[in-house]
């Protein structure tokens, strides 16, 4: 059994760590690229959202590297992600890629359904070892997220353009290479040193922009055309409404770990505008917009794949939030036809607008 899984930003680092900890043979698909997307677009349903097409491309590319089993998460709607695995499997079968499919679904009848699937993947390892592996994977997710957060702060302040990105990649590589908890802890320290090595201008005035939207397009830089990096280079400190470890804590550990931002806060904040969950991260998007506005952010960027239902609901409601809190919001919709230059132009215009607004406010105060 050679297991593969779809890409979603840095997810592969912790998923690989977790599975290798359990001595599962893992094939990580090549990073998502134009080729991946082209493959997905060719075989995927026309109006399926972009994550499905990228998943499909990942699986086709991983097949070439010898993968024969897919691990996917499932879901129970109303977002169509819950049916991804089944559709993707049917498509792959039709075009001649014979994969075995393991879908980790929220158990419908009994929790044992979930356990038996985990047991099937992990083989003879004890449950204790499985828990250790999950813990190890989670620790990696935390480490990766911390590096990412640091990079968000550094990018607008770096003295040499691009130096943050180099440090970021090196730090991630260090984390990725570790195989034990002990090594990971050492790597975290070294990664911290690498990040500290970038020279910064700490007094440079920066804009603060919240980045929110659908989780896949938020976490996968290829799918959002590097929007975080562009914003950083244009002089904005970015904060993202979802980080991998927070998502894991919310959805897999049921919010057991305290001290992390949780979706409950976002949903409470969204209530005056959106009184019911709408699947996906729709309500969280509205809620995080409110939270960012209250925290004094200068602007908000929402990203989601074309035709994403929950985010369209959020998009329709966000103007109300923008009006009430006087915070400009830019919505970017991604699909296979989105061009990087177009996005860049819009981001530049948005940044100009925010800077002007900030300037006017400063003048009014003085």
């Amino acid at each position, binding site marked *: 059994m050679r297991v593969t899984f779809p890409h979603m930003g840095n997810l592969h680092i912790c998923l690989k760590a977790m599975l290798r900890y359990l001595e599962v043979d893992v094939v990580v698909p090549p990073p998502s690229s134009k080729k991946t997307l082209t493959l997905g677009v060719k075989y995927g*349903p*026309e*109006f*399926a*959202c972009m994550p499905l097409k990228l998943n499909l491309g990942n699986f086709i590319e991983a097949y070439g590297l010898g993968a024969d089993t897919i691990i996917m998460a*499932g879901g*129970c*709607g*109303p*977002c*169509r992600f*819950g*049916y991804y695995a*089944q*559709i993707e499997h*049917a498509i792959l079968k*039709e075009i001649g890629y014979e994969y075995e499919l393991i*879908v980790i679904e929220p158990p*419908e009848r009994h929790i044992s359904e979930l356990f038996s699937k985990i047991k099937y993947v992990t083989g003879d390892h004890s449950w204790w070892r499985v828990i250790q592996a999950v813990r190890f994977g989670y620790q990696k997710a935390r480490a990766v997220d911390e590096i990412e957060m640091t990079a968000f702060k550094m990018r607008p302040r770096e003295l040499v353009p691009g130096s943050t990105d180099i440090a970021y990649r090196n730090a991630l590589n260090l984390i990725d290479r570790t195989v034990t908890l002990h090594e990971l802890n050492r790597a975290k320290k070294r990664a911290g040193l690498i990040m500290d090595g970038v020279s910064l201008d700490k007094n440079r005035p920066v804009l603060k922009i919240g980045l929110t939207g659908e989780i896949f397009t938020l976490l996968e830089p290829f799918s959002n055309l590097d929007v975080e990096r562009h914003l950083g280079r244009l002089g904005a400190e970015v904060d993202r409404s979802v980080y991998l470890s927070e998502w894991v804590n919310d959805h897999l550990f049921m919010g057991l770990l305290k001290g992390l931002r949780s979706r409950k806060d976002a949903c409470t904040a969204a209530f005056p*505008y*959106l*009184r*019911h*969950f*709408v*699947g*996906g991260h*729709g309500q969280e998007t509205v809620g995080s917009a409110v939270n960012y506005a209250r925290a004094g952010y200068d602007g908000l960027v929402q990203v989601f794949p*074309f*035709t*994403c*239902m*929950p985010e*369209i*609901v959020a*998009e*329709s*409601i966000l*103007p*109300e939030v923008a009006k009430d809190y006087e915070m400009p919001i830019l919505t970017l*919709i991604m699909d296979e036809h989105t061009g990087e230059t177009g996005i860049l132009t819009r981001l530049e215009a948005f940044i100009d607008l925010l800077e002007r607004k900030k300037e006017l406010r400063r003048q009014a105060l003085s």
Partner: protein
Amino acid sequence: MNLKIGIPRALLYYYYYPLWKTFFQELGAEVVLSSPSSKVILDNGLKHAVDEICLPIKMAFGHVQDLAGKVDYIFLPRLVSVKKHEYICPKFLGFPDLVRCLDGLPPLIDINVNYYKNKKDAYFAVKEAGKLFTNNYLKIWGAYRSALDIQKKYFRLLQLGLMPDEALAGLEEGVEEKPRLHQGEHTVALLGHPYNIYDSYINMNLIRRLRTMGVNVLTAECLSERVVRNCASGLSKKLFWTLGQRMIGAAFHSFKRHDISGIVYVAAFACGPDSMTGDLIAREARVARMPFMNLTLDEHTGETGIVTRIEAFMDMVRWRKAGLSK
């Protein structure tokens, strides 16, 4: 004076109008429907909805606007789930909130209809809707019971082969409950969300057009719930959209019936559930060697384009039939 309750002629009006209407009338309200879909209504909807949202929701925005100034309340239930462990669609879940962002509308009655966990939750919704009129729970309950009776009759009429507009007219006039047989040359299964296939403005009179071409139209609503569910259970994983489930069930049922010579699938541009169910049905139709056509609708769809495609599809169906009988 009686309270005027407005009901937009959109979305699941095509399923539940008899229920809603009877309930409010029993409680002494006057029920006002928005005008039938038209260019004016659609244009009004386009003005108020975001570009990315699907055509039926844009249409619904227009219908809601049409009721402004005519009624005291607009009835806009939040249809989360009408069946255990199933949903309608994310946009239905957020629709009342989207409408609340608009200015100049009468207050909404936006009760939550949610059967996701259990049926009992729905009774709270009934109670909440009825509280506007009376504090007598018995009366609310009675109104709900008689509304349910009418609703059941409506579903029976649909299963006898009547289309929603015919069935609604039939309910008013007290039509006889006997099957409608159409003498068309072919039978085609017309699948899609009810608000796409039954709104004759959205789909440019698709049903009437097919009928004048000598085609009997069979929709998912002509089949009993049991048949649809049984057929849909052939999927490896149950679909979590009630309406998608109905389409899949009706499609699988059509593959088995020899008198059905093709499937026309009507999807709204950028509809999430349609992108998945449509693909599933198309895939299965290829396996079952059933002629299949996917019509995608949006506000730019031209009538001539639709006509050409239906004609071509029917030609294909006819040739195929002729070829098979040789």
